[in-house]
């Protein structure tokens, strides 16, 4: 057979195995989608929403734009290997298609320098030869950086890299082997046939013809075997993300979302994790407490392999749900949701736990706004009093929903994996709000806000009080004066990273005071440590996390530390002699008296 040599067999068999295993896995996962996800997929499978997905696939799977924005050195490393290898295959396929004039087997593109045993015949062939060498050099530079990262990850801007399993280590070395082996194989072929480019020919000229003819077959065989090892290990290791991310981007673009239980969609998310370890550096549990085995990367790995049942549970529950890792994740995996799924309480999650709430009556609030302080705001009465002062100042009639008896919004239960119990509370609150006829819901607690905004399906607008105050000031309904107070603002996790509310609180603060910048703000703001998400760490550990956040806030030397969350306020208040106030309180202090 023309264009065949036994050494291509490992590669051919490996690539077939890869294709079969991947197809099997993907089909199985798609069949595990729940009813709603299948319906959405079928409805949108050929919709126009697919088009922006192609762009994102190109940007994220090949160019790694998001990771480059966070850390350009890591970005270069990923891009050179992913995009470089893609081009190597793509350009190689074109080159061999032209060069073989139809006698084409798909392995020829991979082992072209072995099968095409003549120097470049014309200009086109010469250009391709040089281009292929350039691309190989590009990939090799990425492999070199990956090697440097392995030795000293700090050089690439990572404090701590992921601790990989044996399989992940094995496939990493096989990946690193592929390109040097290709370089050597092509070089010895260049010695014999003078068909190399600027790189392979230069190296090839170092060999004598005897040595080269002796080494040629072993090198090409090793290269083929290494590819085979990589292909066969790929579906069972982290490199599964290479193909899975493409699917995940498509599914997200056509509108698929994860639900409360684990479905096939989660399987796609789990396999899209490349275990890059960006989540580790971001995690406050690592940064402030030195805990290194509970981060999202490990949780996802254990969930995917369904091994170490105890580790899944331990890693799952030790998390602040501060969204730092989700913000940092270059694949944008919904890490908080996966963490919640890992906390599913199963038998413990009992239906009809809150029969005692049946007696709670609604209120006729037509023409009023509903104000939901939230459980935590009852422990910081300054916030609820300020909000009532503001309602009165603008002449807004309001209904203080939970003035003396507060029903929880259900999010704390949901975060701990009690889905049914949380749903029961949501139903009760929805009933109360809908039957009251209120025109708007305002809440002072970011946890409740997230819940009402994302988990309830309310038809009325839901506003956090900072949004509401900002709206009043912009409309000119609330007259405030600018004081010469210097403030720093703490972005609460749920309000900022959770709901993307960064601007409104800042606008309000700028209207009443002088806002100072801090080192870690907006997406990078630090957690106050009191987040309800974590039930494992001790009070002392929470204090350590809080102090780190406080240091960041007090560094510019403000008169007042402002927050928009009763929990953060409470946390900071215990830890500093400085003034800690909610935005609503600062606004009330600076109301125009004659208005």
């Amino acid at each position, binding site marked *: 057979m023309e264009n065949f040599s036994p050494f291509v067999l490992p590669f051919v068999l490996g690539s077939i195995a890869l294709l079969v295993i991947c197809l099997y896995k993907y089909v199985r996962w798609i069949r595990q989608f729940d009813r709603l996800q299948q319906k959405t997929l079928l409805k949108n499978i050929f919709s126009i929403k697919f088009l922006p997905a192609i762009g994102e696939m190109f940007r994220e799977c090949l160019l790694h734009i998001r990771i480059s924005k966070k850390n350009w050195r890591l970005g270069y490393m990923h891009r050179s290997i992913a995009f470089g290898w893609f081009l190597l295959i793509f350009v190689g396929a074109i080159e061999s298609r032209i060069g073989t004039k139809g006698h084409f087997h798909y392995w020829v593109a991979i082992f072209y320098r072995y099968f095409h045993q003549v120097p470049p015949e014309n200009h086109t062939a010469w250009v391709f030869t040089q281009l292929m060498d350039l691309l190989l050099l590009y990939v090799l530079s990425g492999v070199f950086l990956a090697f440097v990262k392995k030795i000293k990850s700090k050089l690439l801007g990572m404090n701590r890299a992921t601790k990989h399993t044996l399989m992940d280590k094995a496939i990493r070395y096989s990946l690193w082997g592929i390109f040097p082996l290709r370089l050597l194989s092509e070089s010895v072929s260049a010695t014999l046939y003078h068909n190399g480019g600027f790189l392979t020919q230069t190296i090839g000229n170092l060999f004598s013809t005897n040595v080269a003819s002796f080494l040629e077959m072993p090198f090409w065989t090793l290269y083929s075997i290494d590819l085979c090892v990589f292909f066969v290990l790929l579906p069972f290791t982290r490199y599964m993300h290479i193909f899975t991310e493409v699917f995940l981007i498509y599914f997200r673009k056509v509108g698929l979302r994860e639900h409360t239980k684990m479905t096939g969609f989660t399987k796609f998310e789990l396999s899209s994790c490349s275990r890059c370890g960006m989540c580790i550096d971001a995690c406050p549990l690592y940064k402030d407490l030195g805990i290194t085995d509970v981060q999202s990367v490990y949780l996802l790995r254990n969930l995917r392999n369904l091994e170490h049942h105890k580790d899944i*549970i331990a890693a799952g*529950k030790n998390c602040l749900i501060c969204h730092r890792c989700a913000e940092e994740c270059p694949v944008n995996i919904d890490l908080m949701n996966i963490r919640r799924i890992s*906390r599913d*309480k199963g*038998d*413990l999650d*009992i239906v009809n*736990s*809150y029969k*005692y*709430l049946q*007696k*709670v009556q609604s209120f006729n609030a037509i023409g009023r706004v509903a104000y939901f302080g939230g*459980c*935590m705001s*009852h*422990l910081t009465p300054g916030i609820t009093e300020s909000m009532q002062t503001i309602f009165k100042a603008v002449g807004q009639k309001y209904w203080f929903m939970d003035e*003396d*008896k*507060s*029903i*929880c919004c*259900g999010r*704390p*239960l949901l975060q*701990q*994996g*009690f889905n049914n*119990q949380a749903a029961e*509370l949501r139903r009760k609150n929805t009933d109360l709000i809908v039957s009251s006829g209120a025109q708007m819901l305002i809440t002072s607690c970011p946890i409740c806000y997230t819940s009402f905004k994302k988990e309830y399906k309310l038809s009325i607008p839901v506003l956090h009080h900072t949004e509401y105050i900002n709206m009043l000031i912009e409309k000119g309904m609330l007259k405030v004066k600018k004081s010469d107070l210097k403030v720093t603002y703490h972005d609460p996790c749920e309000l900022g990273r959770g709901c993307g509310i960064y601007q409104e609180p800042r606008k309000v603060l700028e209207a009443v005071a002088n806002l100072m910048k801090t080192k870690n703000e907006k997406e990078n703001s630090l957690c106050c440590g*009191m987040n*309800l998400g974590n*039930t*494992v760490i*001790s*009070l002392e550990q929470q204090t350590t996390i809080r102090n780190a956040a406080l240091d960041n806030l007090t560094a510019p030397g403000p008169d007042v530390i402002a927050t928009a969350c009763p*929990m953060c306020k*409470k946390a900071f208040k215990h830890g500093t002699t400085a003034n800690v106030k909610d935005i609503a309180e600062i606004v009330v202090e600076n109301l125009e008296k004659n208005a």
Partner: protein
Amino acid sequence: MADFGFSIAKTRSVKLSDTDMSKYRQLLELVPSFKRCISCGGCTASCSARQFTDFNIRKTHCYFRRGQYDKLEQELQKCMLCGKCTLVCPRGVNLRSLIINMRQILTNTNEIIG
């Protein structure tokens, strides 16, 4: 029993020597901060569920501490996990963790989540 000159009604007495304290010990391992509890009742005073029904978290964990586990699980289901108790606790007991773990131990002693 030695005669101290007074007696206790049988229904109100707990014989610690005959009580199964293993669940309590298990709880202490999972929630070490519970050792610090002084039963002050701050948790009950702040409780959201308490405002609607006769759920008493202090009573519940006191019973647990004495090894009286009857009907505690049904009682604990009334908790909404809002976390006010954890925030007001003067001794820094992680009450939310305590409640989840108590429920877990009472329902299924083989597998501890929470």
